Each structure stands twice: as structure tokens, then as C-alpha cells.
């Protein structure tokens, strides 16, 4: 057994082993203490840090979207609300065969065959445990059709979600705006945290302008999630303290709109392209803001398809264009009362002096002739008849006497050339031309000169001057208030969740100064004459109240030449735009209206009847009698 020269010494080897074992024991003790030291660092010194990390791990905050505020008209009628809508949702990981399920839905007619690819891609891009909507806004019929086949579709279920709905459909869509999916640009200016859990955001109109108030404050609830991010109700005995914070519902908007007046305005416009704006001259309330054609705002809330959107944008009638705020047209003769006021205020016009209208005007120092816009002649006219009968020759002379700078300076306080400041966005300022403006606006030096003939055209609202229907309604209300100026407003109050309405005070603008009461009377009398015996008298027979108005006809110079429009369409679109502005009752004005009918031809026949219907709707009761207005604003 013994090898080599060395003899095995058992006693010595035993001692050697014992020594090593003791050293090993000491080493074990040292290493164990090292471990304990490490654990002390983790569990005592850095305990708070790790505790926080561990809490952040298992608890996720899930937003609870706040109910969007309602939109009501001035009488409490619902214009925009929230509706639970059925939608079909799919949880990817619970669907054994996605293709088969989608094909099955196509067969049931719940989804389009050509939407399947897109849908599949969308579903694949989501987390497998997230519920993905595959069909929004299902009808009761759709729900029933799915329900009987439910067992064939594991992982699919019908969920109820709140969506926006507009009980009046397209009515007042250009005032209300609409809600649509939150877009990339939207994300730039919103607090993303406040919108987590919300799919829709206001676009245009009051839905957009009062987005902050309508949106309310999101609530949240803490939920327990496991490492896969999946929500768990309870895991073993683990029951941490989870907090819930209720959302604060958005405020309801009380609009100045009057549902009935709005309905009448839109119905009166009918199939015409055009706009109607009705204001309260005493505080700027917008009773009606109509722009036709319109569109159905719920298209956007349920997710507009590409083809639907293309149909809206490609439509020659431009239904998405808010003509009331953004349609800029020459004012036509609606400018005459204001030019007359300018003449009176600058003392260059004797209201009682009779001028002779032979249907043509010679600009002094020029060979150029300016004719009556509609041809014909008015014979002997003083100021009142010149307004009532809309005599161009009378105003050609007045404009020449005043000069462009005085006209422009006088027009500006009425709001020409600047936005009215209505409480929704997108308003266009129109254009108030001056020689200075022309110098800047044109490149060629020959074009930068202001010609005397342009002043003549300016005096009757043709040429460079551009106004929007909202601006003209505002002008009408300034005249009605004899210089008072209120910023038009759609929202007059905010109603909180308790039902308390917080009124919003009207905002007064700068009053038009320097016009004497007598001069206001003279011009308003001219406008009364227009309705009583002048250009618009046919539309105001049998009136239960007094009205002052003015027709206007804006010349159309060009039309987009496009081969796909037939000749008849082009011919129709070359017709003049028809204007009518009015206010009533004259003694104590309560409503001021501007009506524009694109290519309506003469203002008196196309626009004035619409204005009358709107004023009737506002001022008369069901029996055709003037409403008792002692209580009204």
C-alpha cells in the first residue's frame, strides 16, 4: 500500500486535516458574515429605496376618463351629449384563430372585407391582453346578430363605451364643431397624462374652443399588475392598499344658440350654399350660426373612413368650410348705411339734398362711367331713398367726396377688416382695403397705386373689400345698438356637475363714437325704408314688428374652371352672391341678422326672405304674435 519514499503518517495527516477544517470553518464564518453584511446593506440601509421600487413594480395607475360635458342651447335643449354605444372588442390572446374570427365577422356583415387586413395589422400591434375595438357604434340589430353567434367567437365581446352623439345631427355643426380621434398635432399641445384613457378630443367649434372645460379631470385607479403587466384581482394573500380617485366630469356648456332659430335658419338656407348669423345686439349672443352645406359630426366620433373624409374634402360645395366665419365675400350694398353714416359724420352729406340718378355716374376728371349695378335709374333720391332703393349713383358720388381713407377709417370701428373675436377659432378677418394696404399687397409698382375708380367701387361694397357673414351680422348689431359693440359669443355659461350655472359676462368692444343720434336715425330710417318700400319690401309684407334692413349683391368675378363641372354648374356659380343684413324691432332691437346666399343672385330675393324667417322664429310665438320680451335679455 505504501508508495514512494514517503511513509503515510496517519496521525500527522489527521492533524493536517483538522487544521484545514478549522481554517475552512473560519473562512465559512467570514463569508457568512460578508453575506449578512450584504443583506444588511440591502435590507436595512437601502430598504426605503427598494421598497419604493417594489411598490412601483406591482401597482399601475389606470386612468378613468371623465364624462365629457354636455352642450346645451340657451333654452336647455341638448345639442351634444354622451351616449353609451355598443362596440365589439377583441382580446388577441384569447382568440385561437384570428383569421377565422375576422372572416366570420365579415360573413356576419359586422366588418368590411377590405378592412380585414388593416384590422389584423392593428390587432397584432397591440398588447395581447388589451381589448381592441374592431367595430364601433353597433346598432341593436348588429348586437343581436352577433349575440346569437357569440359562442363561435371566443375572445370577442360586446362592450359598452361612452361616445359623443349629436341628437340634432348636422345642425349647427359649424358652431359646435365635433370630436374626433386625438391626432399627432393634438398631442403636441395637450397634457398627455390628462388624456390617457381618452380617445376623442374636440375639433373646431365650441367642442375645440372649450375643450379644457368640457374634458374635465381624469380620475385614476390603482390596479395590481403582475410582471406581464396584466391586471390581477388578487394574488395569493397579497392585498395592497389601492387608491381610487374619482374623475371630475367636464362642465356643460350653455350656448347662446337658440335651437329653434338655428333650425329655421338652416331649413331656410336649404340646399343653397350660404350662411346665416343672428346676434343679440345687446350682448353679442349668437342666436344662430348656420353654414350650409354641413356634415354629420358623428362621422368623426365613430372614426371617419378615408373615403368618407375624401368625399367631404373633394365636394365642390365644401361642406367642411365654415362660411359664417371663414367665407370672405365682397359686402355689396350692405355697406351703404355705414358709408352714409361716414358722410353724415364727416359733414360732407346733406341728407335732405335730392340728387338725380340717371343710372350712370361720371367720375370727375376721368372719362370712366360707373353704372347702376342692376341697371336702370332711380330718378330724384335723397339719403333715405338712396339707402332704401340702394342707389349706386348716389353712393358713387358720396364715396368720391369722402375719399378712400375717410371711408376706411370710419368702417374700421364697425369691425370691417378685423376678426370679431367670437369665442371659437378659425375666424377670418376679411379685408378692409386702403392705399397703404394696396402698396404692400401688390408686387408691380403699377398695381400699387390706388385709383380713384377703386374708391367709387369701395363706396358700394365692391372691389377689394371682403367681409364674412359673422362680420356683417356684427355690423348690423352695431347699427342696431347705435354704436354699441359686443364681442359675439357662443358660450354664455358653464354648468358644473352640481347643476350650478356660472354665467359668462358679455364682453363689450369699443363703441363707435362721434355719430349723432340724428344721423343714426336718418340711416336707420333708410334701412327701414328698404324693408317697407325699397329693395326688400316684397319679403316683409304683413310684418308683426318693425325691421331695418339692407340688401347686397356681391359680384363674382371668377369661378374655378374645371372640366368636370358642367356648363350649367359653371353658369350657376358665376351668379352674384346675395346678402341681406337686418335688425328688429327697430325701436328696441333684439336681433341682428346677416344672410349670405352664394350665387343667390339679387340679395332681396334670395337672402331677405331667409332673414325674415329667422327673425320671425326668434321674435314671434307659435301664433305669429310678438313674444312678450320684458323678461328676455
Amino acid at each position, binding site marked *: 500500500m505504501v508508495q514512494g519514499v514517503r511513509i503515510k503518517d496517519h496521525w500527522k*495527516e489527521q492533524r493536517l486535516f483538522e487544521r484545514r477544517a478549522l481554517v475552512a470553518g473560519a473562512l465559512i464564518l467570514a463569508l457568512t458574515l460578508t453575506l449578512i453584511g*450584504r443583506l444588511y446593506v440591502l435590507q436595512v440601509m437601502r430598504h426605503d429605496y427598494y421598497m419604493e421600487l*417594489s411598490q412601483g413594480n406591482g401597482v399601475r395607475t389606470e386612468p378613468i376618463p371623465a364624462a365629457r360635458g354636455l352642450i346645451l342651447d340657451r333654452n336647455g335643449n341638448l345639442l351634444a351629449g354622451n351616449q353609451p354605444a355598443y362596440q365589439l372588442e377583441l382580446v388577441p390572446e384569447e382568440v385561437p384563430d384570428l383569421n377565422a374570427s375576422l372572416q366570420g365577422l365579415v360573413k356576419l356583415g359586422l366588418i368590411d372585407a377590405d378592412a380585414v387586413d388593416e384590422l389584423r395589422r392593428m390587432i397584432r400591434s397591440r398588447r395581447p391582453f388589451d381589448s381592441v375595438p374592431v367595430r364601433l357604434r353597433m346598432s341593436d340589430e348588429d348586437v343581436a346578430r352577433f349575440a346569437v353567434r357569440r359562442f363561435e367567437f371566443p375572445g370577442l365581446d360586446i362592450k359598452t363605451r361612452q361616445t359623443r352623439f349629436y341628437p340634432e345631427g348636422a345642425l349647427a355643426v359649424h358652431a359646435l364643431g365635433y370630436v374626433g380621434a386625438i391626432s399627432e398635432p393634438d398631442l403636441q399641445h395637450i397634457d398627455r397624462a390628462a388624456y390617457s384613457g381618452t380617445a376623442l378630443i374636440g375639433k373646431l367649434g365650441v367642442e375645440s374652443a372649450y375643450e379644457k372645460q368640457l374634458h374635465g379631470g381624469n380620475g385614476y385607479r390603482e390596479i395590481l399588475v403582475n410582471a406581464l403587466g396584466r391586471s390581477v384581482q388578487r394574488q395569493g394573500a397579497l392585498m395592497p392598499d389601492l387608491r381610487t380617485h374619482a374623475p371630475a366630469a367636464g362642465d356643460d356648456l350653455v350656448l347662446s344658440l337658440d335651437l329653434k332659430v338655428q333650425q329655421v335658419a338652416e331649413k331656410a338656407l336649404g340646399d343653397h350654399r350660404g350662411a346665416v348669423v343672428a346676434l343679440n345686439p345687446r350682448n353679442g349672443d349668437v342666436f344662430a350660426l348656420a353654414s350650409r352645406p354641413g356634415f354629420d359630426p358623428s362621422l368623426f366620433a365613430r372614426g371617419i373612413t378615408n373615403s368618407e373624409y375624401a368625399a367631404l374634402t373633394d365636394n365642390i360645395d365644401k361642406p367642411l368650410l365654415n362660411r359664417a366665419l371663414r367665407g370672405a365675400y365682397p359686402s355689396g350694398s350692405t355697406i351703404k348705411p355705414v358709408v352714409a353714416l361716414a358722410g353724415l359724420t364727416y359733414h360732407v352729406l346733406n341728407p335732405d339734398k335730392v340728387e338725380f340718378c340717371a343710372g350712370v355716374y361720371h367720375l370727375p376728371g376721368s372719362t370712366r362711367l360707373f353704372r347702376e349695378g342692376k341697371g336702370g335709374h332711380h330718378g330724384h333720391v335723397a339719403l333715405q331713398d338712396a339707402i332704401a332703393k340702394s342707389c349706386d349713383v348716389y353712393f358713387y358720388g358720396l364715396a368720391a367726396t369722402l375719399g378712400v381713407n375717410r371711408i376706411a377709417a370710419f368702417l374700421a370701428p364697425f369691425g370691417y377688416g378685423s376678426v370679431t373675436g367670437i369665442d371659437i377659432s378659425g375666424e377670418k378677418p376679411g379685408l378692409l382695403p386702403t392705399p397703404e394696404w394696396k402698396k404692400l399687397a401688390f408686387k408691380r409698382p403699377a398695381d400699387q397705386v390706388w385709383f380713384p375708380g377703386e374708391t367709387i367701387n369701395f363706396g358700394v361694397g365692391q372691389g377689394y373689400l371682403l367681409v364674412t357673414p359673422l362680420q356683417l351680422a356684427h355690423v348690423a348689431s352695431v347699427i342696431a345698438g347705435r354704436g354699441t359693440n359686443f364681442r359675439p359669443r357662443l358660450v354664455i355659461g358653464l354648468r358644473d356637475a352640481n347643476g350650478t350655472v356660472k354665467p359668462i359676462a358679455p364682453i363689450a368692444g369699443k363703441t363707435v363714437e362721434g355719430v349723432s343720434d340724428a344721423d343714426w336715425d336718418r340711416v336707420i330710417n333708410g334701412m327701414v325704408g328698404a324693408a317697407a318700400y325699397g329693395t326688400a319690401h316684397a319679403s316683409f309684407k304683413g310684418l308683426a314688428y318693425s325691421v331695418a334692413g339692407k340688401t347686397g349683391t356681391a359680384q363674382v368675378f371668377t369661378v374655378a374652371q374645371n372640366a368636370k363641372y358642367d356648363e350649367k354648374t359653371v353658369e350657376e356659380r358665376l351668379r352674384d352672391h346675395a346678402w341681406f343684413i337686418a335688425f328688429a324691432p327697430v325701436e328696441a332691437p333684439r336681433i341682428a341678422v346677416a344672410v349670405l346666399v352664394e350665387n343667390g343672385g339679387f340679395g332681396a330675393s334670395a337672402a331677405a326672405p331667409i332673414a325674415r324667417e329667422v327673425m320671425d322664429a326668434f321674435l314671434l310665438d307659435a301664433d305669429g304674435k310678438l313674444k312678450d320680451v320684458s323678461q328676455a335679455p
Partner: protein
Amino acid sequence: MYEEVTSGSRTRRTLTGTARMLAALKLDGALLIGLGLVAVYGLVVLYSASGQSLATIIRAGAHLGMGAVAMLLLAQVNPNFLRRSSPWLYLLGVVLLLVVDGIGYIGKGAQRWLDLGVLRFQPSEVMKLAVPMMCAWFLHDRALPPRVSSLAVLTVLIFVPVGLVALQPDLGTAALIAIAGGLVIVMAGLKVRIMAALAALGAIAGWFGWAFMHDYQKKRVLTFFDPNTDRLGAGYHIIQSQIAIGSGGVFGKGWMHGSQAQLQFLPERSTDFIFAVIGEEFGLLGLALLLLLYAFVVARALYLAMQTQDTFARLLGGSLALTFFVYVFINAGMVSGLLPVVGVPLPLVSYGGSSMVTLLAGFGILMSLYSHRKLMGS
């Protein structure tokens, strides 16, 4: 040994009766109690760590039972027989490793298991016992401390199976096998200066070895130095386990109340990372208690090894005792972020049949070496 049975209380009679029974079964009572306490502690933790899975507890109990049977059987075996059969066991293990590696090569994938139809087992587990046995067998007749020529032979004996396991590739187990063999040599009195030289050599070898490591292995090492480099990948384990331990504090969050473990943020919570579950739910006190139990087991095992009478028994017993501690230290060190992440289970606590059986078999051998010590050295 003569015991006075007739005198004393009933309790004492029961105790002495138990002692006699244990002696007859060739088992060591103190070690058995230590192991039992660790195992019961393990089952309690495992119930929570497995997400309250009774099935897991039953299977773990079965593993424990199998291990106990292996321990009991091996305790009866005469150490001389164990010693004589060491080379054959070693050879069998090497052959099985070759077979497993061969199957893995053909199957083009990591292969550790040998499926015998009724029973699947890892030959590398056998090697955890066979390599120290082989080393102890080799040194049994030789004068200690071993000479350089013996060391050369031992190096080959250790690195053939270690290399085969590393090829599987299972670096963790390979390292454990090398450590088990190496500890035999250290306990045999390997000169300190040779150990120092080997350590230097190992450092150089490690530097070269880096070049041959798989990417995932490199990643583990890198992650050890900075877990935040790969928060959701390799670093995820270590970050989550430190959160679990750290958030447990001194007293822990309570049994089945550890959010890291219960919500599955902690990966491999019932196997390699169960140490973190204890830390989270029972706190520093729970871990200290566990380490105390382990220290007791190791101390008792070392004591038993010291009591044996021949070289084979001493060296093998010493290696088994120290290897057990190495398992504990590597696992605890890795889970608490002191060591890189290697796949080493926490002995007797981590869920897993192979390691449970191997460990208890090792203790069975140790008990055999101790309880048959009078028969040896002849």
C-alpha cells in the same frame, strides 16, 4: 456503547430510544435535524414562492422523500465498498456524460438530461459526488500532502468530467464539480503557495476563457458588474431579486405577501431565486435564520468528517461539507448581487429533484463514513 435505559424520565427514554434507532440506521441525529429544519423551512417558502401551488409542494415532498431514501440507503453502505467502487462510478459517469454530449451534438442543442424512460437524470449530478469520491480514492493510499505528480493526475481526473459538463454547456455545474474535486485536494493539504500559484494561473485562464465564452455567459458576467446595462434582459434577474430582498427589510412583508414574488416580478422565484423570496417575505431575520441553519449543517458535517478514521473518509467528508457551503454561498451571493448570476440552486430549498437527491445522497455518504468509522482504516 452502553446506555442506561431503565432510569430517567419517559422523555429521556424516548430520546435514548430514538438515538439508538438512529445509530442502528447509521444516521447522525444532529445533522438529520439540521437538514430537516432546512427542508421544512424550504417547503414553507416554496408554498408561497410557487404561488400557493400544493402540487409543487407534493412534488417537492416526493423529491425530499427520494433524497431521504437515497441518504438512508447510502448510510448503510460500507465505506470500504464506497471507496472501492469510486473508480467505477467515476468511469460510468464519464461514459454517461459522453453519451449525453453525443446526443446533444446530434440533436444540435444543449443537452443535460438522460432519459431512461421511467426516470430522467443528469449525469452531471452524479459527477458532483463521483469526482470528489474519485479524488479521495486516488489520495487514500498516498502520503499527504500530495506530490506534484499526484496533483497532475488529479487535475486530469477533475477536468475530464468538468470539460464534458462545460461542453453541454453548463458552466455552473462544471464549476461546482471542479470545486468539489478541488476541495478534496485542498483538504489533503495542498501547499498554500501552490494554491496561490493556481489562483494566479486561474486568473490568466479566466482571461483566456473569456474569449471562448458564449455570448450569454459573457453577458452574465458583464451584468454582474453593472446590472443596469441590460435592465430587461440579463440584468432583470438581479435587479428584481435585489428589489425583493431590499424591500423585505428586517422583518419581511410576511408569508405570501411579497409583491415581487407573488406578482412574478422575480424570475425563477421557486428555483434559483428562492433566496430572494425568503428575503422579501421573512426579511433579514428570515435569511439570518436560514444561514444559521446552514452554518449548523456545515459545521456538523465538518465535525463528522473530522471524526472519521481514514484518508478517503476524511477527504470525501470534508469536501462534501464544504461543497454544501459553497452551494449556499454561491446561490446567496448571486441572488443578493455579490456574485455573477450562475445557475446554482439554493441547497434543499430550491425546487428541483436532481439537486435534492444528490445533496441528500452526499449526506448519506457522509453519515456512512462517520457511522462506520470503527470498521475502517484496517
